[in-house]
């Protein structure tokens, strides 16, 4: 009996291994979330500087035409220069002045231009305007640049730091909600870049995916579950095929898209149309398999009842089996769509990976997708992009969580309906 002690010790150790592995998995999960969240949350704010902009008549519209076509050719940069020089009258020298102007993002010019486009009457007046700060300033304000480091180790030198501190004491440098991030496309300047383009690219691609894979997937599931002859070699072959496709690496689907959609059918490169088509082939097996599972769960007695009152096979299936199974089918579809939303490898292969500034307007415009945008930004070493990468990941995860919660809700409803 004295080995009982040893056995029980072994038992405890074994149990501990189990707990440890779960704890390890969950720790890794939380490290992942914490690291991404802690790096990303600051990207939801952007730093702006308030300047007194004098929309000088002599600069914008010397001939007093009040014609936008004339005004739009004016140099709006001068206005910013003048304004910031006024704020720091003791800064002299060309290079110093240029450095001073660089505190403001290059997008400031466009911001003023847009303002005048909509308020042409403002020419000749002075207005306080919040202009986007440069990304380095943004990083400093958000505390990602340590002010106590020696000058040569930080991206903001002592002069700039001094100026920023002046702005801070004057309270004309402030953090706002980052609208730019959600309303613009990619940009070479991190403070001007946003996810709207990528988000729309994903949306277009997923719409194509849904349009293709949902009807075909469900039709396939209905056929295989209800109409296909049983014990038929050919049908078995179809089923083996579907199961295998579900486990084929996603990049292979990209190769298929490249060879067939792009080279054979000559569809446009980098377009969400092709991306959506490739993703739909990838999503199909998921939809088929889960739809079949939910159709199997519908009690056969319901179908028998319909046949018993003289419904045809098709009527029984479409009037009774499918309506009951639909929430289950939708669950599978949403899970498939969520996976497609997070998928990037096949999109890389069909060229949806490029620096695209324009917001796509249709499914044939060149575009990226949200995960691809993350991939592209992750490759950029600038601190501003690291922050935005994490923020884009947070946005992606929020979408995935929403989709999965919807799927869970539908599954619970389905299970309630079945019982």
């Amino acid at each position, binding site marked *: 009996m004295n080995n009982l002690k040893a056995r029980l010790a072994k038992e405890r150790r074994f149990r501990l291994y189990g707990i440890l592995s779960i704890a390890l998995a969950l720790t890794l999960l939380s490290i992942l979330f914490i690291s991404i969240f802690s790096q990303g949350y600051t990207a939801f704010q952007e730093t702006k500087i308030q300047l007194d902009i004098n929309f000088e008549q002599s600069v914008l519209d010397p001939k007093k035409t009040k014609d936008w076509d004339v005004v739009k050719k004016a140099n709006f940069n001068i206005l910013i220069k003048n304004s910031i020089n006024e704020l720091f009258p003791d800064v002299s020298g060309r290079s110093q002045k240029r450095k001073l102007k660089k505190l403001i993002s290059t997008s400031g010019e466009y911001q003023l231009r847009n303002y005048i486009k909509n308020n042409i009457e403002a020419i000749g007046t002075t207005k306080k305007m919040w202009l986007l700060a440069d990304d380095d300033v943004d990083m400093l304000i958000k505390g990602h640049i340590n002010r106590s480091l020696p000058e040569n180790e930080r991206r903001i030198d002592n002069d700039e730091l001094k100026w920023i501190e002046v702005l801070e004491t004057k309270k004309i440098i402030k953090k706002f909600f980052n609208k730019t991030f959600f309303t613009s496309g990619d940009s070479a300047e991190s403070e001007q870049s946003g996810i709207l383009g990528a988000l729309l690219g994903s949306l277009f691609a997923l719409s194509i995916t849904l349009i293709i894979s949902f009807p075909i997937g469900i039709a396939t599931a209905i*056929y295989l579950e209800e109409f296909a002859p049983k014990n038929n070699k050919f049908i078995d072959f179809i089923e083996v095929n579907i199961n295998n496709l579900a486990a084929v690496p996603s990049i292979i689907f990209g*190769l298929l898209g490249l060879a067939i959609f792009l080279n054979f059918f000559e569809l446009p490169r980098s377009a969400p149309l092709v991306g959506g088509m490739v993703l739909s*082939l990838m999503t199909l097996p998921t939809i088929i398999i889960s739809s079949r599972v939910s159709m199997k769960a519908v009690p056969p007695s319901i179908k028998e009842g319909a046949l018993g009152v003289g419904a045809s096979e098709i009527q029984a299936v479409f009037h009774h089996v499918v309506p009951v199974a639909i929430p289950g089918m939708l669950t599978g579809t949403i899970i498939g769509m969520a996976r497609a939303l*997070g998928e990037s490898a096949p999109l890389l292969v069909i060229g949806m990976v490029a620096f695209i500034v324009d917001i796509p307007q249709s499914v044939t415009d060149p575009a990226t997708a949200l*995960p*691809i945008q993350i*991939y592209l930004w992750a490759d950029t070493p600038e601190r501003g992009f690291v922050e935005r990468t994490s923020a884009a990941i947070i946005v992606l995860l929020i979408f995935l969580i929403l989709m999965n919660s919807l799927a869970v809700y539908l599954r619970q409803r389905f299970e309630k309906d079945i019982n």
Partner: protein
Amino acid sequence: MSITSILLIIGLFSISGYYAGLKKSLVLRENKKFHSAPIYHGALLAINSSLSSIFFIISWLIIEKNFYTDLESFRNILYIISIIIFLTVSLLTFKKIKHDFQARDNLEKIIQYFLLVCSLLAILVTIGIFLSVIFESNKFFGVISITEFLFGTHWSPQMPIREDQAGSSGAFGAVPLFAGTFLIAFISMCIAGPIGLMSAIYLSEYASKKTRSIVKPLTEILAGIPTVVYGFFAVVVVAPFIRNTGSNFGIEIASESALAAGLVMGIMIIPFVSSISDDVINSVPQNLKNGSLGVGATKSETIKKVIIPAALPGIIGGLLLAVSRAIGETMIVVMAAGMSANLTANPFEAVTTVTVQIVVLLVGDQEFDSPKTLAAFALGLVLFIITLILNYIALHVVRKYREQYE
């Protein structure tokens, strides 16, 4: 006129055809019992005529594109004929509407064929994959011999033509890629295998229902995280951590080490392993467990001596699926593993993988027929075959296992 507008016209015609058929059968039904309900007559009329004219348009377009490009100038004739076909078929179907016309049976046959065609798409996709990779690989093997590709140990597709080289481009010996792929897959399985399996065992055998209902969804979150996020995690958190740890111990670790990529891939695969193992363990019959517990074995002894041996085929099947997953995974390695081929078994060095090279070869503007792009398809072919074999064996093993206890 364009194809879109003609399709729109056909659509509108179909709607009116539907109502025409519906109306006629409704009127006729006043006097005599009908075989099929009126909506079927209407629907059949609409579908019959629109399908036949769309079929005509498609065949015309295929002929035009592939055989007689001159036909394009006769597009107007195409439109007229397709409308005529539509009207003729409508009229013929309309005439057929009688009390004993089996509209429903006809319509249902069409639906069944539609369903069948949809399920054929799955085969079409497989064939499409096969054809595209084999066709392009074949072109590649016309330039580089298969043996050189499969057994060569030097991979540098970007290199300019060397004089002692038989091929027209760089070196395409893929062994370093295979080695790198398996090294990373091996590291990831070393992480995911034990952790995934142990958590499955704990969750299915020890954990209370409440713990299970909390922990299981949490581990499933791991499965739902996009791979690009794992890739970012590897680059920003794991790789620097490993490098710093290494330098603390005086070991030099590359910033794109196989270890970092494999580790993160392992994390990604944990939920995959644990959910399959969980299923498998749960399908071991309870009385088998009771038998062992009944003779005084501890829980862990029961698990080790009874449950695991019984569940082994299923677990192996699951692990094989996980390996296939690891081999085919792209984003993590593209972001966290190296770009240049390096034949080594040292996990601290940077290696590259098959999937990384496919991406490297295909991203950027490429002529389609250069050996560089074709090489990507050859790699794709190898990847496809390996994963297909692994999947087939795994699915087969798992199915056989399930049948055993059903």
